[in-house]
């Protein structure tokens, strides 16, 4: 059976809901065709965040889930189909384990095996709330209940003295994680700490995806053409648009000049016929339409010319209306300190007014601000990850900071260091370390890290060179001296 896909519900004013950036971002991607997994891919958000946001949006009545193969609804839309039951989280995700693991000869019931494997291979992707299957708002009691239920199932004593095969260590790991989740969520201070961490992760992820997309679109829009239809879906100004046909996607190749010409002529002919119908092939936000003035032209060429002018005027008007609206939305978002939304709106505004230098500068300025916020957020995240000894995650976070702040030597050094700890990609680590050294060669630590990275990668000569350079900075550096000694023996 085809997976149900989310779709926007018509005529819902989303402004009245309290949506966070992730929800908002996701909304802009919901088009009635993409399933949750596609959305996750498209937005770069983890699947669980997408699913959680979708559930929230669905419960708010902003979206509904439909069968993608069902015929598109006609306008006005029919009464909404009965709401499908909230899908089971686990069913939405494909199995990540090798089915052969279910076949292992041991005393664990098959249903239980599935559960164990499902959770075990997803441990790295899911947060404490998802692991326990509770909402962010869940109170202590709910967390405890959920934990007790899982603990009862995952504790190895459930199968005392039975042959559990490879499931025993897995169950022990799961049990420890579930317990950690419980212990964190029932402890007020630890939960606050953890929530802050999760919030940082969500912010950075959401902002990053949004900004990247904005950047992407800004690049793609060379000039506003009629075919570059305004955004699909709901935009921050809160006017949801229901597409009666699949909306034109930004990725469609721009129409050729001849095609445009042909379309315009066809349009003119229709208009000349006095039908006066607005173009129906393209959906657009409802801009207050001027009643067309029925005029008579001496020749058809004149008429075409006049119509062309009128048509372009209208496009212009529509564009400037969009620019106005997005700029307003951006300023509003800015007033609410919602940098991500503001940047996103500006990027769209810029798209409609590519020549507006002031707007572009404003956008750039805002993007810088958003970047600053994001890097702060990543630094906090990295701090938490380092404390928890999650080295690969910490390395990733520091790398992001380094990317956002190309002049931050410390971030680059930390990224390299965490990669070292995480047994990560030493090429990447070397890049970071080199950048740290290049940015601030006076800090011996940067040389140490670079040399260590080279040493770990087996590049003895490079390591020695890096260490020697470092020793020029700090001739008594113990770590460098030790490294030299070790390399000397090599």
């Amino acid at each position, binding site marked *: 059976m085809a997976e149900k896909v989310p779709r926007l519900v018509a005529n819902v004013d989303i402004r009245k809901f309290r949506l966070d950036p992730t929800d908002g971002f996701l909304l802009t991607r919901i088009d009635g065709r993409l399933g949750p997994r596609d959305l996750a891919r498209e937005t770069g958000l983890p699947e669980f965040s997408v699913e959680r946001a979708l559930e929230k949006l669905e419960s708010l009545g902003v979206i509904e889930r439909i069968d993608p193969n069902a015929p598109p609804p006609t306008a006005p839309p029919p009464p909404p189909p009965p709401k499908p039951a909230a899908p089971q989280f686990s069913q939405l995700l494909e199995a990540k384990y090798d089915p052969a693991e279910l076949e292992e000869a041991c005393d664990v019931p098959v249903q239980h095996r599935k559960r164990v494997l499902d959770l075990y291979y997803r441990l790295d992707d899911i947060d404490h709330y998802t692991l326990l299957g509770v909402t962010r708002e869940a109170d202590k009691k709910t967390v405890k*209940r959920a934990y*007790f239920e899982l603990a*009862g199932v995952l504790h*190895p004593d459930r199968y005392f003295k039975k042959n559990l095969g490879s499931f025993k260590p897995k169950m022990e790991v799961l049990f420890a994680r579930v317990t950690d989740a419980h212990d964190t969520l029932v*402890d007020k201070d630890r939960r606050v700490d953890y929530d802050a961490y999760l919030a940082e992760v969500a912010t950075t992820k959401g902002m990053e995806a949004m900004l990247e997309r904005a950047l992407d679109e800004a690049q793609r829009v060379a000039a506003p053409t009629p075919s570059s239809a305004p955004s699909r879906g709901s935009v921050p100004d809160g006017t949801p648009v229901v597409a009666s046909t699949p909306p034109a996607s930004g990725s469609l190749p721009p129409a050729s000049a001849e095609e445009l010409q042909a379309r315009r002529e066809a349009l003119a002919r229709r208009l000349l016929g006095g039908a006066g119908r607005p173009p129906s092939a393209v959906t657009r936000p409802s801009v207050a339409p001027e009643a067309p003035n029925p005029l008579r032209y001496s020749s058809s060429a004149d008429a075409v010319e006049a119509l062309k002018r009128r048509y372009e005027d209208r496009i212009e008007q529509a564009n400037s209306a969009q620019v106005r609206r997005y700029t307003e939305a951006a300023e509003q978002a800015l007033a609410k300190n919602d940098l991500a939304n503001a940047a996103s709106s500006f990027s769209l505004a810029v798209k409609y007014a590519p020549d507006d230098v002031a707007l572009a500068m404003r956008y750039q300025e805002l993007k810088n601000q958003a970047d600053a916020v994001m890097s702060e957020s990543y630094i906090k995240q990295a701090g938490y990850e380092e404390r928890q000894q999650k080295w690969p995650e910490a390395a990733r976070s520091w790398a992001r900071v380094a990317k956002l702040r190309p002049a931050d030597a410390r971030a680059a050094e930390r990224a390299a260091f965490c990669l070292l700890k995480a047994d990560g990609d030493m090429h990447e680590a070397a890049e970071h370390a080199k950048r740290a050294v290049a940015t601030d060669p006076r800090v011996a630590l940067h040389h140490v890290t670079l040399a260590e990275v080279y040493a770990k990668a087996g590049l003895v000569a490079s390591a020695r060179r890096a260490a020697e350079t470092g020793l020029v900075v700090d001739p008594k550096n*113990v770590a460098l001296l030790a490294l030299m000694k*070790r390399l000397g023996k090599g």
Partner: protein
Amino acid sequence: MEKVIGIDLGTTNSCVAIVENGTPVVIPNRGGYKTTPSMVAVTEAGKRLVGHIAKRQAITNAENTVYAAKRLIGRKWNSPQVKNAVATSSYRIVEGPHNDVRIVLRDKEFSVPEISAMVLQEMKVIAEDYLGEPVSKAVVTVPAYFNDNQRQATKDAGEIAGLDVIRIINEPTAAALSYGFGRNIEKTVAVYDFGGGTFDISILEIGAHGVFKVIATAGDTFLGGEDVDARIIDWLVSGFKEEHGIDLRQDRMALQRLKDAAEKAKCELSSVRETEVNLPFIISSGRNEALHLQRSLTRTTLEELSEDLIDRTVDICRQTLEDAKLEKDEIDEVVLVGGMTRMPRIQQAVQQFFEKEPNKGVHPDEVVALGAAIQGAALVDDKQEMILLDVTPHALGIMTFGSYFEELIPQNTTVPTHRTKIFTTSRDNQTAVKILVMQGESQRAEENELLGEFILTGLRRAPKGQVEIEVTFEINADGIVSVRAKDLETGLEQSIQVTATSGLTRDEIKTMMDNAKDDLVDRRTSEEFEAARQEAEKLITEIEKLFPQVQQIVASSDFGRDAIEKAKAIVEKARSAIERKDAAAVKEQLEGLTRTHRMFKGVVAKT
């Protein structure tokens, strides 16, 4: 499905229970008592006595009667607790090999697990008599605050007694299991367990799906009813010294009598306000005259004598609540366990602290064994929906440079669990590192318990702090600790499974097991023989008493003479069987003796 018994191996009394048809029941001993004194003695004839019989002869055989062996189990000879026990016990405690403790009974040295094994064996026999089938699996309880060495020693004791101890659980936890079993409640419960030798406090959450989660546990393994007894003894001894100038402690038999009297007085004062300690002829004055001890003790005096002990338990409760991050009003129920909680002052102190009337619905002496039986049943029976999530009572870690203790697994961590930390070398050119696995809460390593050690070699020669070693601690569901050290550079790895040392080697345990088995056969046969002998001798005496009369009456007839000959033969056979100590043969003659006796009595009655 094999039956699993639950044994509460107490400092003063032990108790055994089993789950029958889904209901946990305490198994009474042959005397009909539900608890059996944890006492072991060896008589002059070399006979081993356990339980009530051992207790009964304790005064006349003080030097060869062991009580409160639990206070010594799993402890090192040089520990202050053992030093204290050496000074106050009426039996002899000596140093054994590898800093171990040995108890001397009739010139023979016994290890502490061996003594405990005798008690466990007694409990096993009680269960077997009741069930009518052999029992080989048990869940044994220990104080929550026992360290790994003490737990291991208890496990060894089980093994020596021929029991497969499938799990060691904590006494207060067991009490909570018994309290919450089958009640389908969601509650946070504090278990205040003040027993004969130890004090424990545990806070548990009882949740849906039969899950019992221990949140925090703490205690003092050298704070119990015995200490209250000791206070009374001190009071009696010092009073006597003032009056007569004689130190009663010098006389082991007097000490044992004092101990008995103190315990009795303490128990009585739970129900009455004043009691008399009366010990006539307690000691010789040295002028050919005996002195008597007679003093009355009031409840108030007892409360004064034990005030600081009670305060200590309350302090531990406060600390545990803090560890659990709970407020007093978050505790739904306070369960009292252990004989000492019968003392009104203690009930009052608990009520004052928790601001809540303690639950008196559980039997303080039996609840622990019942809980152990419940855990045993839950482990082997798939249908029992009960899971116990226990915690490590002590922090686990390693010794680091400067003999500091570096903690890896904190106290009160739910098991199974695992933790990793990275360490570096502490000396230049260090090529090997010794990992000392320790348990305890002190920052100073030497104040904590050493559980095991191993060496990781082959490290790169480097200045100190350069080589990184990753140490991983793991505790599995069975409570077994394994420690792994890995050189992060070379990937070299060393690991051990920490088998805590009970002071006994595997071979020693094996030998003791065999000895205990032999002893069991001996004892059982001798019991059987003893019973048959007594009955036979009683009958023989009766028959012989009637002989002259019967002879007079029936001598005239041939039948009579024949009967008398036959009777004489039976008596003879029985006598020789008794002499040979052949239980089976004595039993065989019992029927004949009974018949003869009945016939003789009939003949005499008719005339």
